[in-house]
């Protein structure tokens, strides 16, 4: 970095500090944009007079108002309309909506329909998790958080794992997504969900394809887990990073379990465990209103979920704060195990290595995600083998008058709730949607603030900070993965230190190609 | 989605050069619309090269002006703001044609019928005219040269209705060497005229002048006469109509019947028992009968309603014996459907008389000696039920007769219109009654209407003959005697508006001069022939003055009283006019149809088949090999329904393309 720039920066900072001490001018750091479910996110960091982080805001500056504009739409269109909330996890919304329709029309789909749904759902879960691990989490761990930015991207990953493996990864995802399209019409924004079943049968030919790909998927996942162990677990630095307090929050956890409290992504009970890991509550999805509440902050369009009975205590952790977390780590924390053999082994290892339940380390999400990936592929295999899968009975026609329906699934990014009220004609009157990332919004905000406070001191922003801050929310996989992985460059950031008047005191940027400049 | 040529301000896109011509129509337009302002406004519109206003655009100098500009200023689009396009669009199109410009590069703006004549506020009217002109200029930009379609004319003509009008039309055409199908619903032709005794004002006998024409029709090789028949369906288009005619069974093989009527004499019924339709029920007929002696064709008809054979199948069938080896009687005859092809159609379906029962205060149907004028026509007709003797129901001769005019005419409670013929036939009846019976005759009239050659003179003559005339609408006819002298009489109460007091006039017989009405099934008939009716129910002519026998359906003409009340001379003149129109069309040998047909962009058509059921003429079909819809231009009548219905706008209609209409919409709304 050229001398004069260095000095210019320091000089600027001195002047700034002087002005600050003189007139209590606060300074702020803006990280903009970061992206998430509905558009891009934004982090605003405010420094106190001493240049220490006083407050960091994790903002979601966009709103589309699905809850409102679905009013008046026919309920049966909801699976297709709500999938447009997110093009990365459309299948999750599609499925939650479809289940809400079952509930709305009081129809129980035939066993075959349920199996087809769960099969497609696990296929989706697999491709989504794989996407995140290889293209988002991957750069952080496979090449390392402190590797030069130029390498800390998908190309770095490819370099590490070899182009052949990279092609294998891409091909695997393609085949999974092709399977989804095969049954659901489209991989992005599927069309197959109907109240009381699914629109399209699975033919023996299709079943055969599912069986092939499922088997392949399990092998692929095994390989992925090995890769993770070799690259991450065998690296004490990484492990300690995962375990570091910087990335730890003692919160509640929420996730879906089956009757035997094992992880289930498609259906079951919603279970909540306290920071101490004990079951705090277990409820039927349609009881969600008793437990889940949303808090509104004037500085963000996203609402922050918390546990109603515990209450909103601001952005604090611990048993007194209603803030909880969802997604892979949470799901493992709330469950007693996995229903498939290999996944169960991986589950046990996960907790033994990380020191028993519950695991509060945000970064452990990456590992937990792989455990789920294994489960998803195994579950695919089971369902694909099911002879009943090709049964022509895939629909039960509703007869009841619709009134109210609630559908809940575990989206890759956590518990997803769709709740509709309709008139007699099945037109939506009211809709309430709690999207996965919202459940994590509060904890994410805390993580960002924690890292910012821990690493940022005045204008002296070390490069690593950018990625560390990123990692703080990236572990939650806040659904901005779709774009970042296919171009050569990890997520670019800008940290700008400026006076309130907006005058830039210091600027540190990393461009799309990963190179870093001070200006 | 590329923009199509739209007027871009100032420049004239695609070398389009528009001329705008605003007509004063004397003061018809200029009186309410500031035509100068409109033409100045138009001059400023994009693409407009010249804009003029002129006293009478439709006049020769007016048209010459347009032609001159087209040549001198190289105009290639013309907008004329004048009267309704339905009036002079053809005129101006010819003007373009003469100047070597395709006639369809014209847009006519209707600023007379729909602007100057319907608005009072000059400013608002002018603003409206501006909007319409602006829209036309924007629209005309997109006009494409079009070619009219030529279709041959089938020289055969269908004449519907065998009254004097139909008869005259049929003969005129047949004389001109055209083949005519004359379809009459009754068993004989002749219509109302055949029922009359004498005709006004000349008093020559109806039969004497009608019968020769009837027989001429019956014998003319160029005329196919189908009585007892009705048109049930008309398909096709001008020059090429396909007509279905229902022929009711008369249970007589026409070719074999000589009209000798021996069967009638031989009928097991010695006396007629059925009210005779021709005599309006004043006499009885048998189940087998000839409507009247001069009936054409001279073929009897059997009425299955009253014939025993049909009721019981046990008749001795004396008629069959009488007919002998001619074997003209066929009880098994069935209704048949004939299909004929003609190029033109003349409707001469005539009128019906007003049902006097609808005016109860005149006592028709209640007092036996209250008659309708038509009944009296029969009574005094030598061939009538009484052999021409005017007798009351009890066989006595009437001493006093009252004739009530305007029954069912000029009456807010029934028909508002003047039936035109009643005054004259009432005078005629008054004359005949007085001549035959010497009775005192009283005419009760509102106004005496006698326009026509020799009509007023006939009225004067009756005044001299001592017929009484009371000006006043009759209030009631009653048998209630207010005075011994009224005993057993019918009393006519009316205000004498000349003497200004109410008269009570006792008479023995009351004649109600019933007015003329459209046929009961006029609505059904016009639908078959796809023409319109006036609100009164008379068939609607294309133009009340300039096209009195044409309709809005090319090749279909109306003649006689079906278009409105007419007396015999008018009807015959009308018939001649209609025949002449048909002949003109036929002799041209082809007709040019507007090119407003629909066409398909084949590449764009997805083969969704949505358009196919939309066409009532089966003009659209699905080409299996190409998997596209195709339109048969000859069958297409250019309604545009399929165009509006095509979900990918792959069908368009010539002269009414989406873009042309969008331009018009945006044109009228755009603020300049």
């Amino acid at each position, binding site marked *: 970095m050229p001398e004069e720039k260095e000095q210019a920066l320091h000089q600027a900072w001195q002047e700034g500090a002087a002005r600050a001490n003189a007139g209590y001018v606060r300074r702020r750091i803006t990280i903009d944009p970061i992206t998430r479910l509905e*558009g891009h996110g934004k982090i605003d960091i405010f420094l106190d007079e001493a240049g220490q982080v006083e407050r960091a805001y994790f903002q979601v500056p966009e709103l589309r108002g699905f809850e409102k504009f679905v009013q008046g739409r*026919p309920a049966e269109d909801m699976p297709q309309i709500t999938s447009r909330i997110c*093009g990365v996890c459309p299948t999750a919304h599609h499925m939650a909506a479809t289940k809400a329709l079952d509930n709305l029309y009081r129809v129980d789909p035939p066993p075959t329909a349920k199996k087809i749904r769960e099969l497609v759902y696990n296929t989706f879960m697999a491709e989504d998790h794989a996407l995140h691990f290889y293209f988002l989490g991957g750069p952080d761990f496979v090449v390392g958080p402190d590797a030069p930015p130029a390498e800390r991207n998908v190309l770095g990953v490819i370099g590490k794992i070899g182009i052949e493996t990279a092609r294998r990864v891409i091909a695997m995802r393609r085949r999974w997504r092709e399977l989804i399209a095969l049954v659901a*019409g489209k991989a*992005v924004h599927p*069309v197959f969900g109907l109240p009381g079943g699914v629109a399209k049968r699975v033919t023996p030919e299709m079943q055969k394809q599912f069986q092939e790909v499922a088997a392949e998927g399990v092998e692929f996942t095994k390989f992925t887990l090995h890769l993770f162990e070799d690259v991450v677990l065998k690296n004490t630095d990484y492990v300690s990073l995962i375990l570091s307090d910087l990335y730890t929050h003692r919160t509640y956890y929420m996730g879906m379990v089956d009757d035997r409290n094992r992880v289930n992504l498609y259906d079951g009970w919603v279970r909540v465990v306290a920071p101490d890991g004990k079951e705090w509550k277990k409820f039927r999805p349609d009881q969600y209103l008793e437990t889940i509440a949303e808090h509104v902050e*004037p500085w963000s369009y996203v609402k922050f979920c918390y546990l109603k009975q515990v209450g909103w205590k601001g952005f604090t952790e611990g048993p007194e704060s209603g803030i909880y977390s969802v997604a892979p780590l949470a799901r493992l924390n709330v469950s007693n195990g996995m229903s498939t053999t290999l996944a169960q082994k991986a589950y046990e290892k996960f907790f033994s290595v990380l020191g028993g339940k519950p695991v509060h380390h945000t970064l452990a999400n990456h590992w937990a995600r792989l455990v789920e990936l294994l489960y998803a592929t195994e579950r695919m295999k089971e369902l694909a083998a099911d002879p009943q899968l090709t049964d022509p009975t895939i629909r039960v026609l509703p007869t009841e008058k619709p009134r109210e329906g609630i559908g809940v699934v575990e989206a890759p990014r956590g518990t997803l709730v769709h709740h509709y009220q309709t008139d007699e004609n099945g037109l939506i009157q009211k809709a309430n949607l709690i999207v996965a990332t919202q459940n994590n919004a509060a904890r994410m905000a805390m993580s960002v603030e924690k890292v910012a406070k821990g690493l940022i001191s005045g204008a002296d922003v070390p490069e690593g900070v950018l990625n560390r801050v990123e990692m703080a929310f990236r572990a939650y996989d806040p659904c901005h993965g779709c774009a970042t992985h296919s171009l050569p460059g990890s997520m670019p950031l800008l940290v700008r230190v400026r006076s309130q008047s907006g005058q830039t005191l210091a600027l540190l940027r990393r461009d799309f190609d990963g190179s870093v400049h001070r200006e | 989605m590329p923009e199509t040529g739209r007027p871009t301000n100032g420049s004239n896109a695609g070398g389009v050069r528009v001329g705008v011509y605003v007509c004063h129509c004397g003061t018809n337009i200029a009186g309410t619309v500031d035509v100068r302002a409109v033409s100045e406004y138009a001059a400023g519109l994009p693409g407009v090269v010249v804009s003029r206003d002129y006293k009478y655009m439709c006049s020769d100098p007016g048209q010459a002006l347009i032609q001159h500009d087209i040549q001198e200023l190289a105009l290639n689009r013309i907008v004329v703001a004048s009267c309704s396009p339905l009036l002079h669009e053809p005129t101006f199109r010819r003007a373009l044609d003469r100047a070597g410009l395709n006639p369809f590069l014209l847009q006519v703006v209707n600023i007379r019928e729909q602007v100057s004549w319907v608005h009072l506020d000059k400013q608002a009217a002018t603003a409206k005219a501006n909007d319409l002109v602006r829209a036309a200029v924007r629209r005309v930009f997109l006009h494409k040269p079009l070619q009219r379609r030529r279709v041959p004319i089938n020289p055969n003509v269908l004449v519907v209705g065998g009254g004097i009008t139909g008869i005259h039309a049929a003969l005129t055409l047949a004389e001109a060497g055209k083949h005519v199908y004359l379809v009459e619903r009754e068993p004989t032709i002749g219509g109302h005229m055949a029922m009359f005794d004498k005709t006004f004002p000349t008093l020559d006998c109806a039969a004497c002048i009608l019968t020769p024409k009837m027989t001429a029709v019956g014998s003319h090789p160029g005329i196919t006469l189908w009585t007892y028949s009705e048109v049930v369906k008309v398909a096709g288009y001008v020059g090429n109509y396909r007509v279905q005619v229902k022929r009711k069974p008369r249970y007589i093989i026409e070719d074999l019947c000589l009209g000798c009527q021996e069967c009638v004499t031989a009928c097991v019924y010695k006396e007629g028992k059925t009210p005779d339709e021709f005599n309006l029920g004043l006499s009885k007929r048998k189940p087998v009968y000839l409507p009247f002696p001069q009936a054409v064709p001279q073929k009897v008809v059997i009425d299955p309603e009253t014939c025993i054979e049909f009721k019981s199948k046990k008749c001795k069938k004396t008629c069959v014996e009488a007919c002998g080896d001619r074997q003209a009687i066929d009880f098994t005859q069935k209704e048949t459907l004939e299909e004929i092809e003609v190029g033109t159609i003349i409707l001469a379906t005539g009128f019906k008389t007003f049902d006097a029962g609808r005016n109860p205060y005149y006592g028709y149907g209640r007092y036996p000696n209250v008659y309708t004028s038509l009944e009296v026509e029969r009574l005094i007709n030598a061939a009538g039920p009484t052999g021409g003797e005017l007798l009351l129901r009890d066989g006595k001769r009437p001493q006093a007769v009252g004739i009530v005019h305007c029954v069912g005419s000029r009456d807010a409670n029934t028909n508002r219109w003047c039936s035109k013929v009643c005054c004259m036939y009432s005078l005629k009846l008054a004359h005949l009654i007085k001549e035959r019976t010497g009775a005192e005759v009283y005419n009760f009239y509102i106004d005496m209407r006698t326009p026509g050659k020799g009509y007023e003179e006939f009225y004067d003559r009756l005044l001299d003959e001592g017929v009484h005339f009371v000006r006043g609408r009759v209030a009631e006819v009653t048998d209630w005697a207010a005075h011994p002298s009224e005993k057993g009489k019918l009393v006519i109460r009316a205000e004498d508006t000349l003497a200004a007091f109410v008269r009570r006039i006792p008479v023995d017989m009351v004649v109600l001069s019933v007015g003329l009405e459209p046929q009961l099934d006029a609505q059904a008939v016009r639908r078959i022939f796809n023409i319109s009716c006036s609100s009164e129910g008379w068939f609607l002519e294309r133009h009340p003055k300039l096209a009195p026998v044409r309709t809005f359906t090319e090749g279909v003409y109306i003649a006689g009283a079906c278009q409105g009340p007419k007396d015999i001379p008018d009807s015959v003149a009308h018939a001649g006019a209609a025949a002449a129109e048909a002949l003109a069309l036929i002799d041209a040998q082809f007709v040019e149809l507007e090119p407003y047909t629909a066409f398909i962009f084949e590449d764009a058509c997805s083969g969704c088949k949505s358009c196919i*059921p939309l066409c009532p003429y089966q003009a659209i079909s699905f080409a299996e090999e190409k998997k596209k819809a195709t339109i048969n231009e000859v069958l297409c009548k250019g309604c545009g329904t399929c165009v509006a219905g095509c979900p990918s706008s792959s069908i368009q209609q010539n002269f009414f393309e989406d873009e042309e209409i969008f331009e018009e919409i945006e044109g009228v709304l755009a603020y300049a």
Partner: protein
Amino acid sequence: MTPAKPKLAFYWCSSCGGCEETVVDLAEAILDVVAAVEIVFWPVALDFKRNDVEAMPDGSIMATFLNGAIRTAEQEDMARLLRRKSGLLVAFGSCSHLGGIPGLANLFDRESILHAVYLESPSTVNPESVLPLTCHHDKGHTVELPAFHNTVRTLDQIVDVDYYVPGCPPPPRILRTALQTLLEGHLPPKGTVLAPDCALCDECPRQDTKPETLSIAEFKRPQELLIDEKTCLLAQGLTCIGPATRAGCEALCIQGNMPCTGCCGPTSRVQDQGAKILSCLASLVEGKEDAEIDRVLNTIPDPVGTFYRYGLPGSFLRRKKLNEVQAPK
């Protein structure tokens, strides 16, 4: 990166990320694309502060693929900026092309949306009726949020658009051909939708099963019948928008045994997709009496949501009439 490569940019406005996914679904092919071009912006990835983008010479980007509708001032701003910086601006996906499903928000206004989300929602606890603020002062910190408009707009309602890539998301086949067209430089006329200009029936596997004279006695909703997997869906009474929708997706939804919902928008001669499918379907219903006609048509429960599922902002009317507009008395 060699500067010789054409520069491509992607940017997203009000959208779901599905358009990005469709790029990703090029799968192996993506590597070739990346090799062929220089991607100078990736919407969700790159810092796009105004001044950074402004630093680029005008028109220096060969083509910008912009997905998502325009809902906020910020998006409007970026659209203008990217227009200036790009040689070609491509509206990518239903949202920027026609408004997309979020465009159904044009049936409501901003206030009612905020109320539904932050006040009426049953799970929301908001005793002080806090609403997000475009400018929030907290202990001297000023935190801004971009305001969002009453009305969702299509890209071409904000800036001049060169091409459109339709679909929600754009089907891979359409995207591939679109990219090829641009990269090979065979530029079609401005304003072209880079997809087949023919309605979906053309490539629908069930075309042959559609009767020539269809007469609709009742519109069925998918949950009301067992849907046959071979027969034309319209013939089965389902409201399939295919006849009024641009082809190119290979009838994916229909292959999923569900009706087309119209995401690829109208063909080039049509200006208002909803109006055309309305006209087409209404023309085919039975009945000549008002009551009879209504009985049939009322079996379409939500005309706007059905006919303008993806295209309300891009339609003639664009949005529901705003209530606050009153007649001058």
